[in-house]
């Protein structure tokens, strides 16, 4: 199974097609809002996976699971990929992410259904 190198949630991400370098913009760690619900126009969950010897040409599924405070069920966003190269990066962009109340907004990464890592964003009410 591929090994996770890193998992970061940010507001934007870009890969230069000429240098192949990744840039992440504004890592999301905390959200403050005066009013709720608040909508995040965009967040990007970036993961980088390192290939193991037995992974060549196998299919995998990376699921991004988002636990929003106050919501009973998480929302899941899967992406299938093949480990063709020694490292594989995924940018999963979520638009119009709605948060209804203060609490912990948790982003979880699963590989083939198994938990791999999580990233927690604290959601707070901004004092007037």
């Amino acid at each position: 199974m591929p090994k996770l190198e890193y998992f970061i949630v940010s507001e934007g991400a870009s890969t230069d097609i000429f240098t192949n370098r990744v840039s992440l913009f504004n890592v999301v760690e905390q959200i403050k809002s005066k009013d709720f619900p608040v909508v995040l126009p965009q967040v990007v969950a970036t993961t980088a996976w390192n290939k193991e010897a037995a992974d060549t040409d196998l299919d995998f599924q990376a699921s991004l699971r988002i636990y929003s405070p106050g919501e009973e069920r998480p929302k899941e966003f899967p992406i299938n990929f093949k480990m063709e190269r020694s490292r594989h990066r995924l940018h999963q962009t979520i638009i119009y992410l709605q948060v209804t109340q203060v609490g912990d907004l948790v982003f979880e990464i699963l590989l083939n259904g198994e938990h791999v890592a999580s990233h927690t964003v604290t959601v707070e009410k901004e004092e007037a």
Partner: protein
Amino acid sequence: MGILERIESEKFIFSVGFELTPNALYKVLLRTEERAELMTSYKAGIITDTMLRCYIQRLLRGFKVGQRFTHDITLSFLSVALEPFSTRFADEFIRDLSKLDVSELSISTKVAKLCLAKRDLLPKTEYRKFVFSTTAIDTYKEIDRIQESVDKSYDRKNYSELAAA
């Protein structure tokens, strides 16, 4: 003479060494000035994917069954020049050329395989875009304004890739 004309010329082919083995040719092509020039032009957008596509298609018109392909060295050069780029065109060209198993393109297919092996060391990137909630779209009156600000603030090239995904 433009770079694409030059890499087709007998003068260029003679200068790089048509007599070299694929591995030696690959290493020699890596250090040519023409490679640096084509890479710069490609990166700057002076030479586009469409131009390269048309160029290659024109070269391939000279393909004759049972005869060595005239532009075998030129195709080898293009593989080596496009090797560092993560564009979709570069990926498909090098991959498809390396998979050919025909006698007529003996050298370029082997050079493409060497390029592919090098490229496989580079990370691959995939993009997917998801909408979290449609209720957010319905309830918010300023959604159009938000969409516009996302478009403006986000990297344009990257965004078009995401939109395509």
